[in-house]
């Protein structure tokens, strides 16, 4: 399953870091952060619960870039 979320982040490098962090989260098959449109699209692993996974994604993103936001 694939879902797209609106995000807020200030610099392009930080967006890349968010992407890495999201990709490394359990339950995420693939993630792409688009800095130009400020969107993150996440492909979830089979059988994972998007809501719970996204909480982890947000937590991991906050770790690499404190000043970011994902609108869940």
């Amino acid at each position: 399953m694939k879902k797209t979320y609106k995000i807020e982040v200030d610099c392009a490098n930080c967006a890349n870091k968010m992407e890495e962090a999201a990709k490394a989260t359990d339950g995420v098959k693939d993630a792409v952060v688009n800095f130009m449109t400020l969107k993150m699209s996440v492909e979830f692993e089979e059988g994972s619960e998007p809501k719970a996974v996204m909480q982890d994604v947000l937590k991991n993103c906050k770790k690499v870039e404190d000043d970011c936001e994902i609108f869940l």
Partner: protein
Amino acid sequence: MTKKQKKALIRIIIAVALVGLISLLPVKGYIRFALFMVPYLVIGYDILRKAVKGIMNRQVFDENFLMAVATIGAIALGDYTEGVAVMIFYQIGELFQSYAVGKSRRNISELMDIRPDYANVEGENGELEQVDPDEVEIGKVIVVQPGEKVPIDGVIIEGKSTLNTSALTGESLPREAEAGDEIVSGCINMTGVLRIRTTKEFGESTVSKILDMVENASSRKSRSENFISKFAHYYTPIVCYCAAALAVLPPLVSILFLHIAPDWGEWIFRALTFLVISCPCALVISIPLSFFAGIGGASRSGVLVKGSNYMETLAQTSCVVFDKTGTLTQGVFAVSSIYPEGMSEDQLLEYAALAESYSSHPISRSLQKAYGKAIDKNRIADVEEISGNGVKAAIDGKEVSVGNDKLMKKLGVSYKELNEVGTVVYVAVDQTFAGSILISDQPKPTAAAAIKALKKAGIRKTVMLTGDRKNVAEHVAKELGLSEYYAELLPADKVSGVEKLLSEQGKKEKLAFVGDGINDAPVLSRADIGIAMGAMGSDAAIEAADIVLMDDDPMKIAKAIKIARKCIRIVYENIYFAIGIKVICLILGALGIANMWAAIFADVGVMVIAVLNAIRALSVKRL
């Protein structure tokens, strides 16, 4: 400006004012230090906080860390003004970046502003009500007034108007539309009120699909973008180690080998300058921005690109393979020439059209179309279809036979054989040969010019694949100036044909296939890059291709390639420029020639120039 940007601006102003004020005060020592800490914290508290958080989260080598170390270092060396100034300039740079990126983001989105905000639905008493297009069901009637965008795909049931399709196709010539015509969303209604019965939901309508595609396009990352991400990943730590080495090694060398007193302060300061120069943001921001602008510009001229990676491939295209019917030719049969024998052209055409008027065969339809007048059925009698050969009918009392050469032979009429490409219709009146009419699939008016433009753009090979007969293919290929053609191919042969051409390509050369997307989906996906044309309202084409031309003008292919090349050129300019300036500044910084101010330029200035350069990719009008 957003709230965040305003806040940053206020902080910058306060910090600058405080620094100016303190510099004038005749204070020394700890008091001076304490006073300078006020503007430093005002301007840099968030950077310091982020740096500490970064360390706690094991994300040591980020920009915030670099800035914190550089400024604290300067302050520790007693250079208070410099330390605070660097922080102020860094914040100004950040503010400018955020403003410039936000602005270009808005500019590009505005350019692609084809999203309709509402749909007019007629209420019970005939009054119009504005509703969210998402809420309109299939089959409902919507009203579009002059000046409004058509929100949902549908069929016109009442009204007549001129449509501006330029937002979709880049074509500025308006299009006529009247009751019975299909209409695609995203067009602007210019003159009359239209009542439209919707045939799709908003989410499935052309306008939604296009927006979705363009917005997601920059998510498919190109090789250059991946390169930059990787580059940044290794670059920052390497620079940090270099800086550490720069701070420690030269003084150690002085002590151990040269036996002179080390100048620790000078080398640490150089290392800090080095750190400030190193920020990779100019690269990281300008590359995706260039692609975003290029894709935006392309979609403005009716060329939809599904991803940044396709921009790259398109720019490297050296061979373009075309499907014939519907791509290079119009895909409809039309009367192309009339050769009468003992009567006028019009009269011959009239006889043929009348005799064939009961048939719905494509040949018959093209005769009716060329005739162009209403058929008076009273003039026709005794219509007799001669299967596989043609028709015989009595027109105005004369016996008229219309059909192929077999029919002429069967009737024993001595006819003049026509050796031209296409379908030939022979006509005999009262058992005497009256002439022949040539019906063929016409090349598109711009097809020859399009091939020429491609060659001029440096495309080495233009190939046509067709299921049509060899003599037809040869004729078209010659007329349009194609370099190769393959005829009498079955759909599966087209795939193997493209595979063969692919194997002949050089490593860096790419092959593009252009089709109408209806029955060539396998070929579209097999080629390095699939281009579908005439996609207005055709979902199949939008799904199958990598690049979609909204109208069916083959001229757009050369344009798309030029747009892609310009975009890629800008991307490379930015890569070389940003890395080049950084490397030069890093060397100068290490040698002690570039001071902190040059470092700030290398960071912020390069970024600003790269962003401005990236925006150039947006203008594609004169390509």
